[in-house]
């Protein structure tokens, strides 16, 4: 596998092979020492001569060489080998090493290939094999834990696997800290990451700092993911690859539930434990006794021909069983030859939520052609996703219209189900009478199986990504390039509620109301057109000096519309047509258009191939800001020196094989706001228009019309070193970003007239160190090689100033716990409500009679919500065709707020709610007032845990703050290449690879975290415009989780890949 990867890297720096007819022909096969497999793409050169060639796909070469010539075999990742060309045949085997560190090629801005040794900033290339080691469906998941400084969190586990991506922490307080996705050289929406077939990827280069912004502009301020798709086969011969990957998902972590108490409530100071209620949603009832007990109403007594339900009064595990084992079946076929790459993919995803499905089908055609000095390339990718999922928003809209609180999502229906309820028995709500709407056991909640069937979201999302590249070689040292890009996304979606009219029993006995039958049709489209022209210079000035440079301009327009039309009440249930309704149509048709234009340039000078310096500059103009502030310029500079080549005494050093130091400084400016934001707008009030009468109200958001772009000043220093013939490699970067004039939507109080005021409101410094360590091999036992890689990032930031008059800025979250930027503290910290405490001792003040604490409305700072440390450990073992790779990840030094803790305590299902078995207890570490002095409380008991948890405790968010640290076994993959010897008897199949993989295998959490995998965080939907069902979320409400997200999952499965 590794050879193919290295071969592809090599191809990028392919030297033109020229073969001179000489005395005689030498032929042979180049194999790898470790496994004996042939290596394609090895450069074979005559020492001190000009003759050279490359090995073919079978590792064979043929070269004319003078007599007594010495052949040099070089290949990236392997130690070069010199051998005298004896008679006719010369077979060699190469030993792998990472000696050639400096030769690694990086896809630098504009897709230009640069040697890593020349680059003054941190960049890492991740090849296809590494990305797909765990068969991730989503490219982002495939990158998780593999690059230092890259923090990818899966925020939900639905059929779309939403992820959030940060590189080197955050630079914007406002929310968008997403890196730029550069797809085959074209700036694209990061959401496409979830649409691209990971198997189409040639490699991904991660530009970690904002260096890419010098060329790509402000969207690259958070780093760049340069994704290059496959363009053709490596050796020019046709290759067909067929693969199947099948994976399963199950829940990896479920919140901790109490297992002692059933339905009921009404506990008070006399009877701490409440009475039993067979139709309750609260689990505040009596203790389980294992005897049969009634659940649900008395059917026969109320004229329904059904026996009452009796179940054992003991805990079951049915809530967890509600979720299915999800599956992903992916079939791929691709065809590649010299200039063409075609792939088809079909992925069938069945979610863990029953009935959630998504089917993704994609086709890609990449083609290039050269006509002399002119080269043209076209990449097209069309992806269609058809999904049918539970419409969570539909249910929560219904709940809020019913004034049912705390009902954010599906998980909440489980929190309203007691532990002894045989939930899975209610699956067949259409035929089983006990599962039906009117007969379901509780009066206060829906059968979750009914709910997921009632509210559905069905949609089709299509993406077309196309780009055209033209390159004209003006001279050896100059090319002109033109690049046009089109990305187009269309979503057609319908959200439906089947509705239900309650029976007489439902209305009269159970007080059930009707469930409206409704429909919303949505059509969303967004297209981005870009046009870029640039000249690329690469001139060897003298023997020692080389000049490189770029000069170009970039123009882009985004155009979109989001149209929604709905009917709130349909006449005939299940007849989903907005024409068949009562009442008025609802809907909106918001549009947006954004234009950006920039020109840019860079100039680089390199000396003797060991010292380089580059200066960059870009001027950008955007339609988002007012004419006074909409044009801005930002410069940058970076430099690198390969000391191991520059300093004579290092050249010969046996210990230090390679050493490069680098540094860079650049500035970026950006205005990442939505269009039309500068002037405050008005909306028709609810119910308006009444006939011909309009009625408007001012919107709650205000923006300073003279908003300036925010600015990021990035400084970084780093080194890359190899020791002991590069057996040990080490790379480290220190970075510091000074972020000023941050555009922040400050949460303001309503009496100002607005609830958010967007201003240049804050400045903060973000800094850290990222480190990569490689031990290749760690252990070399001849046939068995164990490699080890580790990466670590330490990242912290500090708010340095805020808008005059403000000492803190709040940014998302809940009323009682939210993210704040506070001067002198990291962004973000969680501020939350706590109990009233005795300032002298910190003890919780309780009422001297009732033993109950009270909430303190003045919130306190509890800690930061972004991880300080992220560590990835990646051992790999290779033995012949077998390879085993594991990935462990640690994130630590941060905290999170679990709103589900609150929701679970309210219904009495959480482990915490059963504290002290619900008997009276002395509130831990408490005190009360006696004659004006606080005395430690040892005797006054809190008389009623139920009232406490369903009352006071709900407004004390500190109860549900958790240490978010975690260690996880992120990925395990075991791959096996069928030995070539087994395939040698036929000529059809080139190779067969079989792999087993698993992700998120194990999770180790601190005790305080009883609620969730801290990676799974709630991210509020962005603006309503283009509010995507899928993809990457940009919300900054770090460290917040609630019941609208599904429980976290682990994935395991296998794949077979056959190459013809």
């Amino acid at each position: 596998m590794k050879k193919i990867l290295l071969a592809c890297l090599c191809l990028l720096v392919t030297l033109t092979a020229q073969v001179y007819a000489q005395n005689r022909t030498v032929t042979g096969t180049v194999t790898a020492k470790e496994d004996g497999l042939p290596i394609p793409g090895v450069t074979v050169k005559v020492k001190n001569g000009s003759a050279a060639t490359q090995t073919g796909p079978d590792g064979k070469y043929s070269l004319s060489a003078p007599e007594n010539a010495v052949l040099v075999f070089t290949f990236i990742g392997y130690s070069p080998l010199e051998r005298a060309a004896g008679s006719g045949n010369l077979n060699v085997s190469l030993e792998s090493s990472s000696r050639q560190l400096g030769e690694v090629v990086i896809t630098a801005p504009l897709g230009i290939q640069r040697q890593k040794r020349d680059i003054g900033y941190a960049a890492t290339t991740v090849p296809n094999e590494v990305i797909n080691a765990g068969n991730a469906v989503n490219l982002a998941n495939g990158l998780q834990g593999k690059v230092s400084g890259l923090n990818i969190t899966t925020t939900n586990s639905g059929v779309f696997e939403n992820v959030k991506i940060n590189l080197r922490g955050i630079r914007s307080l406002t929310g968008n800290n997403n890196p730029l996705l550069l797809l085959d050289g074209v700036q694209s929406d990061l959401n496409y990451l979830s649409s691209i077939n990971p198997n189409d990827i040639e490699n991904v280069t991660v530009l970690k700092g904002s260096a890419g912004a010098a060329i790509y502009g402000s969207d690259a301020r958070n780093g760049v993911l340069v994704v290059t798709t496959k363009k053709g086969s490596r050796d020019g011969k046709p290759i067909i690859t067929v693969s199947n990957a099948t994976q399963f998902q199950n829940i990896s972590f479920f919140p901790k539930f109490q297992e002692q108490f059933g339905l009921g409530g009404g506990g008070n100071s006399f009877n701490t434990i409440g009475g039993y209620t067979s139709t309750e949603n609260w689990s505040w009832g009596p203790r389980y006794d294992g005897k049969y007990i009634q659940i649900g109403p008395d059917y026969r007594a109320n004229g329904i021909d059904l026996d009452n339900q009796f179940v054992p009064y003991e805990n079951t595990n049915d809530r967890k069983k509600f979720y299915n084992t999800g599956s992903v079946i992916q079939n791929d076929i691709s065809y590649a030859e010299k200039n063409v790459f075609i792939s088809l993919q079909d992925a069938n995803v069945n979610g863990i939520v029953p009935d959630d499905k998504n089917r993704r089908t994609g086709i890609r055609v990449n083609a290039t052609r050269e006509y002399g000095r002119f080269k043209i390339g076209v990449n097209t990718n069309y992806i269609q996703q058809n999904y049918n999922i539970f419409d969570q928003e539909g249910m929560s809209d219904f709940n809020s219209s019913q004034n049912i609180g705390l009902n954010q999502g599906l998980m909440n229906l489980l929190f309203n189900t007691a532990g002894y309820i045989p939930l899975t028995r209610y699956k067949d709500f259409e035929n089983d009478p006990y599962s039906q709407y009117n007969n379901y056991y509780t009066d206060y909640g829906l059968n979750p199986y009914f709910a997921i069937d009632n509210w559905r979201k069905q949609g089709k999302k299509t993406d077309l990504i196309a780009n055209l590249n033209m390159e004209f070689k003006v001279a050896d040292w100059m090319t002109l390039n033109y690049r046009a890009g089109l990305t187009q996304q269309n979503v057609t979606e319908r959200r439906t509620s089947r509705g239900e009219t309650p029976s007489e029993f439902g209305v009269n006995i159970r007080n059930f109301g009707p469930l409206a039958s409704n429909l919303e049709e949505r059509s969303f489209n967004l297209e981005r057109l870009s046009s870029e022209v640039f000249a690329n210079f690469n001139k060897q000035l003298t023997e020692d000096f080389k000049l490189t440079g770029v000069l170009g301009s970039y123009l882009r327009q985004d155009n979109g519309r989001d149209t929604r039309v709905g009917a709130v009440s349909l006449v005939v249930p299940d007849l989903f047509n907005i024409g068949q309704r009562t009442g008025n149509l609802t809907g909106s048709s918001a549009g947006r258009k954004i234009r950006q234009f920039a020109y840019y340039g860079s100039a680089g000078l390199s000396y003797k191939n060991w010292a380089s310096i580059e200066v960059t500059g870009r001027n950008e103009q955007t339609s988002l800001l007012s004419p006074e502030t909409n044009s801005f310029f930002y410069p940058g500079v970076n430099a690198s020196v390969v000391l191991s080549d520059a300093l004579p005494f290092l050249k010969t050093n046996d210990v230090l094989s390679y050493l490069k130091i680098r540094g860079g400084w650049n500035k970026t400016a950006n205005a990442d706001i939505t269009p039309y934001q500068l002037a405050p707008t008005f909306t028709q009030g609810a119910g308006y228009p009444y006939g011909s009468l309009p009625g408007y109200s001012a919107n709650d958001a205000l923006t300073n019309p003279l908003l300036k772009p925010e600015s990021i000043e990035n400084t970084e220093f780093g080194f890359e070193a190899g020791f002991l013939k590069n057996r040990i490699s080490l790379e480290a970067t220190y970075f510091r970003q000074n972020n000023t004039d941050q555009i922040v939507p400050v949460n303001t109080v309503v009496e100002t007239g607005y609830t958010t005021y967007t201003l240049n409101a804050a400045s903060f410094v973000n800094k850290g160190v990222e480190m990569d360590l490689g031990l290749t091999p760690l252990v070399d036992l001849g046939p068995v090689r164990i490699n080890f890689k580790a990466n670590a990032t330490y990242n912290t930031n500090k708010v340095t100033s805020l808008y005059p008059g403000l000492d803190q800025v709040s940014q998302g979250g809940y009323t009682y716990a939210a993210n704040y930027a506070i001067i002198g503290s990291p962004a973000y910290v969680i501020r939350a409500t706590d109990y009233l405490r005795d300032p002298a001792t910190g003890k919780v003040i309780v009422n001297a009679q009732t033993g109950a604490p009270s909430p303190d409305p003045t919130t306190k700072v509890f800690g930061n919500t972004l991880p300080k440390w992220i560590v990835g450990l990646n051992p790999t073992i290779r033995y012949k065709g077998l390879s085993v790779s594991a990935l462990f990840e640690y994130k630590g030094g941060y905290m999170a707020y679990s709103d589900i803790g609150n929701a679970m305590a309210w219904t009495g299902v959480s482990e915490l709610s059963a504290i002290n078995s619900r008997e009276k207890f002395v509130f831990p570490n408490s005190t009360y007032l006696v004659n004006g002095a606080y005395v430690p409380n040892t005797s006054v008991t809190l008389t009623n845990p139920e009232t406490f948890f369903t009352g006071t405790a709900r407004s004390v968010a500190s109860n549900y703050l958790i240490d978010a640290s975690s260690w996880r076994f992120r990925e395990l993959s075991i791959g096996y290449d069928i030995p070539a010897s087994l395939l040698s008897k036929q000529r059809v199949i080139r190779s067969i690879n079989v792999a087993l993989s698993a992700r998120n295998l194990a999770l180790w959490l601190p005790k305080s975290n009883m609620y969730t995998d801290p990676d799974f965080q709630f991210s509020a939907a962005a603006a309503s415009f283009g509010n995507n069902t899928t993809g990457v979320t940009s919300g900054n409400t770090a460290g917040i989780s609630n019941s609208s997200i599904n429980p976290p999952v682990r994935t395991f499965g296998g794949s077979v890949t056959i190459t013809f």
Partner: protein
Amino acid sequence: MKKIAYSFFALSLLVTTSCKKEFFDINDSPNSPTEASITPNLLLPRTLTITASRTGTSFDYAAFWMGYWSRSGSYGQSIEIESYNITTGFQTGQWTGWYDILNDINLMEKKAKAAGSPFYEAAAKTLKANGFMYLVDQYNNVPYSKAFDIQGNILPGYDKGEDIYADLFVQLDAAAKLFASSTADPIAVTSDIMFHGDVTKWRKFVNTLRLKLLIHESQVVSAAARAAVIAQINADGSGYLGAGETAAVNPGYAVSDGQQNPYYNTYKVTALGILDSYNRANNYILNTYKANNDIRYTRVFSAAAIPLTPADTYRGTNFGETLPNSDPYRANNQSDVAGPGLAVSPTQSQPVITSVESLFLQAEAIQRGWITGTAQTAYEAAIRESYAYLGASATDANTYIARPNVALNATGDPIKQIAYQKYLSLIGLSNFEAYVDYRRLGVPSDPAIISLSGSRNGLNIPLRLLYPQSEYNNNSANVVGQGTINAQTSAIFWDK
């Protein structure tokens, strides 16, 4: 080839570099109107509808605390309402809801002033006074002079409740004078969905509001300050809202989702057919009506949809009581709070100040000697108006008035007697006014209105709301500067 290539690249360079200023001038919203296209007549209708719907449907908590309403047998306890142990998350919509309307009103006032349209300016001042009254009566000190100035006061300071009251009288007098000077605007006839441009009715409304504010501070207002306001009212000369002159709003309520009369929609049934099954008659007031043979209970409450026994046609619940599951009475077996006298139709107008309330205010002011008239006559007229408003017969009203315990002097404290009869008349019409009178005069004084909740732990009916958590989160220094607020003891300035 070469030539084509060069000219192509030259052309594309030209195209992409020739961006003019207009090219970027695409940032005017195509989706929503901005300030330039908003005139006062576009703001007035919505501020009126929201003012009316807040008055009519946002004060459930007062109805619960005052013994009017109670939770049906279909629901579990509402902890904070029933335990009186309220938090900073309780009723936060009072703060955000009123300030949201007030911001629109404030904009309307500025725009009207700039455009020289006194009618809208006066309407704005009037509605602003009404809104701030509700804020002060629930929170005491609130941002007033520093509000709605985000550039100057991003963290608005608080004004004292009594200072705000004092300024509201100044604003209301200015409003009365502006109304007097303005003529009916043809557009106002449609956008003024309360009085259709009738400035005399507006002036009556202003005067009634002034009287209402004076009555609220009856226990603390100085004679001089009070006399000055009365003099202003008399100088205006339009009088107060009289019998049949309820100030009510109707934008064109219709039987359609989101467009029904708010009271009907909230407490009876929505356009989608969802019945209110939460709010039910409180046994306290239901039994009081029944004991006095006061037929109005059949007008403010509905007969139970499914009475369990013939005696249960009108049945309520006891506030705060937690009944065992075996209790057979559910929402359907109990009386809802949208009786035929209150919820007449889904398209009825929504009152802001009713004629009933106006007449009781006048009766109390006469009794106190603030305005001229005969207290006995005014008192009886107010009770008759209540009967008439609810569609009960005049005969029944006369029978009721003839009861010895209804006589003005029955208890020896006519002011409290007026307030008590006002209490029995305002259910569903102005639940909040009853809560004001309770705090001001201690009427009703019956301990039976207190919650039966087991988690009450000896707490009493709160004297005010706590500032919302959003103030502690985002305007912390100013709210903390108000000191520790205790809902049990920190009274509104007029509550002495």
